[in-house]
């Protein structure tokens, strides 16, 4: 498990940030991104993937959450 932060970039896209490794990247896809469910599998531009427990509603961004690494970046 890793602590990650998700925020919105200048163009409205989701941006992923992993403080422990100072890794910033854009999120290319998020499994659930709807009014009643938010989170799930997150795919990064660098090829990595993380899993965030789905939330019942989109949270206020930026948000720090615990995430499980599914497919390591780098």
């Amino acid at each position, binding site marked *: 498990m890793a602590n990650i*932060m998700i*925020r919105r970039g*200048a163009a409205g896209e989701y941006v992923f*940030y992993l*403080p422990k490794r*100072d*890794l*910033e*990247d854009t999120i290319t896809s998020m499994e659930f991104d709807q009014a009643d469910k938010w989170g799930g599998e997150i795919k990064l*531009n*660098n090829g990595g993937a993380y899993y965030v427990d789905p939330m019942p509603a989109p949270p*206020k961004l*930026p*948000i*720090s959450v615990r995430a499980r690494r599914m497919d390591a970046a*780098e």
Partner: protein
Amino acid sequence: MSALTREETEALIKEVLEVYPEKAQKDRAKHLAVNDQSVEQSKKCITSNRKSLPGVMTIRGCAYAGSKGVVWGPIKDMIHISHGPVGCGQYSRAGRRNYYVGVTGVNTFGTMNFTSDFQEKDIVFGGDKKLAKIINEIEGLFPLHKGISVQSECPIGLIGDDIEAVSKKGAAELDKPVVPVRCEGFRGVSQSLGHHIANDSIRDWVFSRDGKDVKSEFVPGPYDVSIIGDYNIGGDAWSSRILLEEMGLRVVAQWSGDGTLAEIELTPKVKLNLIHCYRSMNYIARHMEEKYSIPWIEYNFFGPTKIAESLRAIAAHFDDKIKAGAEAVIAKYQPMVDAVIAKYRTRLEGKRVMLYVGGLRPRHVIGSYEDLGMEVVGTGYEFGHNDDYDRTIKEMGNATLLYDDVTGFEFEEFVKKVKPDLIGSGIKEKYIFQKMGVPFRQMHSWDYSGPYHGYDGFAIFARDMDMTINNPCWKILTPPWQKKPEAEAIAKAA
């Protein structure tokens, strides 16, 4: 010499790498690249923020340098104790030229060196008692200080001193913040982790004390902003601040050049955080965005093109009054910019520059050079990360050289082959290249000049570059006995 093609640059990298043993070759190859603007992600072409190879000459610093030297050091009304042996603090003292106003030794302490001067017995028996004593001595000798930070040097982490406990006790006795910073030099691969640790210590020990947010009487206004990541080198923050104020914003805090503890404490109340040095201060900006909902933007005050772009981008976060203000500022300085460019562009047009600086300027200063008609043909970071290179690829021309954590050897070889008209790097590189006869400017400390930020800074920047490149001394570097006979004959005839 015209620009190198992609193939030539690739061949150059190969040639330079040839002298290394196979393993080192493989490792260093990952840190050298030919720029390709079509690449979206720097990771595909260049690796960064990795441990330097033993045996190669690296130009990096340590985590203590990142925390004490960069982030904490310039906060002028606090006393920063270099906790450990005397050398780390003394040899880095006042070297960064973070200008400030105040009476040194009375209410400001920027250029002074405070150290616990560890001896053998402190290593053997621990230095906590000594630290507690120093904290009390400081209070007695310098009663006007606003707080203390404890900057750990290597031994502190090794002998397991509990500086947090001592700091807490000291803070309670003094009723002033005492901030323990775990920035021992061995942490991380470069000074970059020191920035991060320092940012985190501000978050944990300045923004909140004992888990509670700091209270203040401050009345926030609608146009409050903070300048973050400007260290006021040669007065940089001052020449930036006036532009923001002229456009109608109120600058509440300067981090950390000419900054004070009070300014840092007020920052969570601003409307927008303006980040100049992204590499050293993005951490705290991210934290404030999450905790206090303060948006942040990166800006660039090097060269008129980028200044105008940045002023407009900043204004876009505010109402029409500020937007009109930004336009007025740009218009006001345009005649001055035109005059500077008219004077220097003809003297500098087409000159080629190679840069190798810390964590921000390798991309930020490109605009300044381009505004003068110059071309940056190679750039690299001492301690940049992937996100820095992501941002650099777009700024640099195609087929230019990128080098991460370049070694002394590689840098020299690149310069011999690329033959730039100017190199911008640090003091450690300066004399090597000057002796090779290549014009050189220090781009960390502005070669004791500055400021280079803002419109006023651009005028000084242009003058300095001209003064260096067109200095007649570069033509008289060949000693008489090495001059070719024809050249002599021509000289005699003339």
